[in-house]
């Protein structure tokens, strides 16, 4: 299951609308402390966000998917600990 979601997420970076990898990141992070979820976010930003675009005033120039991945990783940790351990 984890591998399937991760594969869909990684392929989705290139082939699917952006919300598919985002959904895969959420699904992965809900159940596992998944490095894949963060990596999907990192590659979304590395591939689709041009270099040198970061400006503090425009939120869309921030690496949103990476931040989203890290937030999911840390944010869902109490939930995972509560229900899965």
């Amino acid at each position, binding site marked *: 299951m984890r591998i399937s979601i991760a594969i869909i997420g990684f392929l989705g970076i*290139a082939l699917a609308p952006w919300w598919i990898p985002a959904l895969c990141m959420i699904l992965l992070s809900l159940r596992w402390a998944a490095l894949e979820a963060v990596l999907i976010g990192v590659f979304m930003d590395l591939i689709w966000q041009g270099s040198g675009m970061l400006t503090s005033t425009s939120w869309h120039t921030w690496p949103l998917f990476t931040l989203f991945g890290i937030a999911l990783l840390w944010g869902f940790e109490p939930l995972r600990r509560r229900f899965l351990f």
Partner: protein
Amino acid sequence: MNLYRRTNTGSKRRLIAMTLLVIVLFVFDILSGGKVRALAQSATANISTTSARLFSDLKYSGLFSTRAHLAAQNQALESRVAHYQEQAAAYQALKQENAQLQTLAHLAQDNTGTTTPIVSSPRSSPYGTFLIGAGSADNIKHNALVLTDDGFAIGRVTDVSTHTALVSALFAPDSKINALVGGTSVIFTGQGGDNARAQVPRGVAVSVGDIITSRSVSGRPIGIVGKVESNPADAYSVVLMRLPQNTSSLRFVFVLSGTQ
């Protein structure tokens, strides 16, 4: 309690390690001059091109034809007709491609640059960017202007690798561009999806279909007025700009050789 603490510390360490790995990846990419980025973009371009080819082959192979369609074909023993239909469809696709390339050839007569295919779907990117199948090996320069076949400026090259380049759309979400509409200079804000909006003083005569140009792209057209929202109580009208054709329907673009 002890086991809980150990598990808790262990999982925290793992999370910290993952976060550090992400930071290391970004730092490595920056220090290596965007090598990780370039590799990832090339891989994405290859995956997109291969999947588009596979999809096209499957489409014309008839593998996903409906049962009714196949039954009709069987009844009339139309295997040969199907073959000709397939050829005709391929011909139509080539004809469309040829027409677009011909228009681009006209564009190339007036400007120096490169005609290049779009190798990614614009809807994949949340940042209003897309990949093109030409890079530094094809003389594509950073910040070069990208035009549609009818000469509308749609973006600028922001990242260049050997055989691919990343283009940022002029109307990427939240991006600002200074433009001329109805003889007045206004600032359009990108909305994503080839759309932008601006506030124009109500006295300025603007009508649907007017061409909008911008000095930041050497006075080239960047779109047309798609809609004008006007309220008698307001001092400003809202002008919605759009491109005459959707970028997701484009297969080729023209990249100017300079950075004008």
